[in-house]
């Protein structure tokens, strides 16, 4: 029963046939791989004066990888499966690939000036960033424990180095080391859980695992496996109580890297969580749901309460991103109840998309303002409206969106989450929605505190000369602001994603 198909490795080789590769479906990944090599080699042969070209080139690679994603979506086949259904390109993976590539492009725009002026290793930075994005793009299609683990490591390992990028700054080093140690620990826990899953079901393919788990008749080891897998992934999405690395890492890392970790890296963790929970662990709902319920409730509450006390803007955004993670977890709690399957996917994906826009926007403002004030304190935003009204208005948009105030994107995201949870209609879901509602109010308090500084307080050092915003950050701000506002006022645009978010083989629908 355990190792039904076990055969000697030598015997299996004789049955080996070359897998058919769907080149079109793999095109985004292939473009990124070519781009990584291109940037690496061009960087080696360029003089220091021309290093600025690396950012432009990297941005172009991300845009080029976007093209096959669009063509695949336009052709719109049901799904393209490779390697025996272990690597699947379907609506779910395409929309997530698009989110990651778009976020990566905005992040390049945000990093450009910081790296240029700091004299950091620009070529290497972008190569590592592209490797990490490649891992995320692979994660969206991975439907096998091993593929998921490889994608997770591919996206994490470059991120460990990027967190320590200011190598002469001890706080950046601390950020990198903390992230590395806890990340490796989380990977080990995750891998241990995966080994139990494989050991008790005899397969690493998510749908096979889902087919062999029997609800109400789980082995002790299988329960342990579920707990370990969810725990390992909870580190990646910095869910409480596995969040302790996040604030220190976010504060110490260079600000563009913080934006990268809190948006792209976290979203990738959610993608892994979604794929595993919906495809493999759907029959283990009796273990998954209570665990996710506790994680979601704790994450929202603790993240918010800690964010209230922060005086440093980056640290505040770090805790705010922890608590936003709790909101993204909320719909996953009602998986497998009644008709929740489709709307769970839609709620999470829409939230990830809008969260990417508004959080990247907020970090862009922090970068733009910190270029002048050289400070990370919330008080350094005092009087911003007086000398930089444009930035002040944009900051208001992003903060209000993060708080979930109606005409903006963040509101639609939260609305979808609450609707999904309430549709489930059992007591646990109602209580969770209540906790979420209370947390929305608490969150508004610290977002509004920033806005009070921006609009009402005087400039702390009396320096009211206008801020020069570099054109690349202007572009990042434009993209994120348009995304935040547009998705809010035209929610129909967002809800249409519901039509193309089919997760191939999901049992929980």
């Amino acid at each position, binding site marked *: *029963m*355990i190792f039904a198909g076990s055969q000697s490795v030598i015997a299996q*080789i*004789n049955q*080996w046939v*070359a*897998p058919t590769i769907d080149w079109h479906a793999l095109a985004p990944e292939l473009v990124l*791989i070519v781009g990584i*090599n291109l940037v*690496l*080699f061009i960087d*080696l*042969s360029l003089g220091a004066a021309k290093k600025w070209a690396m950012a432009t080139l990297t941005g172009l690679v991300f845009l080029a990888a976007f093209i096959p994603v669009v063509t695949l979506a336009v052709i719109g086949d049901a799904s393209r499966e490779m390697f025996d259904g272990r690597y699947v390109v379907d609506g779910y993976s395409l929309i997530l690939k698009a989110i990651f590539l778009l976020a990566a492009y905005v992040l390049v725009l945000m990093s450009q000036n910081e790296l240029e002026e700091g004299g950091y290793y620009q070529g290497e930075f972008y190569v590592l960033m592209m490797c990490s994005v490649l891992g995320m793009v692979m994660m969206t299609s991975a439907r096998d424990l091993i593929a998921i683990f490889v994608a997770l490591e591919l996206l994490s390992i470059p991120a460990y180095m990027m967190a320590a990028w200011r190598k002469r700054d001890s706080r950046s080093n601390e950020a990198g080391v903390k992230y590395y140690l806890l990340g490796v620990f989380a990977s080990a826990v995750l891998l241990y859980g995966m080994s139990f899953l494989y*050991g*008790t079901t005899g397969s690493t393919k998510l749908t096979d695992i889902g087919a062999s788990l029997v609800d109400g008749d789980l*082995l002790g*080891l299988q329960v342990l496996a579920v707990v370990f897998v969810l725990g390992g992934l909870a580190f990646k999405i910095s869910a409480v109580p596995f969040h302790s690395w996040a604030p220190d890492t976010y504060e110490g890392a260079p600000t563009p890297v913080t934006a990268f970790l809190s948006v792209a890296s976290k979203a990738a963790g959610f993608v892994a969580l979604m794929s595993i929970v919906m495809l493999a662990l759907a029959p283990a709902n009796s273990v998954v749901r209570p665990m996710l319920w506790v994680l979601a409730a704790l994450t929202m509450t603790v993240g918010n309460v800690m964010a209230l006390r922060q005086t440093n803007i980056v640290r505040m955004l770090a805790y705010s991103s922890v608590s936003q993670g709790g909101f993204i977890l909320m719909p996953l709690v009602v998986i497998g109840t009644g008709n929740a399957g489709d709307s769970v996917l839609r709620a999470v994906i829409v939230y990830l998309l809008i969260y990417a826009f508004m959080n990247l926007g907020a970090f862009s403002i922090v970068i733009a303002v910190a270029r002048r004030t050289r400070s990370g304190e919330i008080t350094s935003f005092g009087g911003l409206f007086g000398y930089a009204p444009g930035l002040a208005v944009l900051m208001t948009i992003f903060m209000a969106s993060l708080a979930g105030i109606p005409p903006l994107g963040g509101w639609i995201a939260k609305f979808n989450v609450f609707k999904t949870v309430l549709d489930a209609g059992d007591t646990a879901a109602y209580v969770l929605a209540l906790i979420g509602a209370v947390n929305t109010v608490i969150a508004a308090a610290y977002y509004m505190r920033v806005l009070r500084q921006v609009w009402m307080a005087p400039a702390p050092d009396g320096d009211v000369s206008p801020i020069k915003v570099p054109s690349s950050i202007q572009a990042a701000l434009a993209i994120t602001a348009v995304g935040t506002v547009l998705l809010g006022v035209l929610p129909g645009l967002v809800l249409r994603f519901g039509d193309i978010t089919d997760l191939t083989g999901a049992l929980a629908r």
Partner: protein
Amino acid sequence: MSLFLRDYLTVVWFGLAAVLLAGLLLGLAAAVRPSHPNREKQMAYESGVDPVGMGWSQSQIRYYVFALLFVIFDVEAVFIFPWAANIERYGVFGLVVMVAFIVLLLDGLVYAWKRGLLRWV
């Protein structure tokens, strides 16, 4: 006991046998051999030379680069040998994949070379 856990019984027996055997041999040796310790004998063994300095000594950081470069070739060998043993079975597909794999690994070597990390400065 489930079939799954039963498989681990082998591991337990194996572990027990290892502990018993090692304990038996070492215990037997300790019982029969003469014991005359002196300062010279209790010194840490360092390739036959008298040890110098403390246990916590700094080592040359340049070796670290070589350790990393060694990994490039080591990983390459681990995957090339099994592929080479069955090369006709894997055919053109295998060749393309292996070339791509080697190129990606050699990226690291080329990078180290162009950055001047291969020079012993």
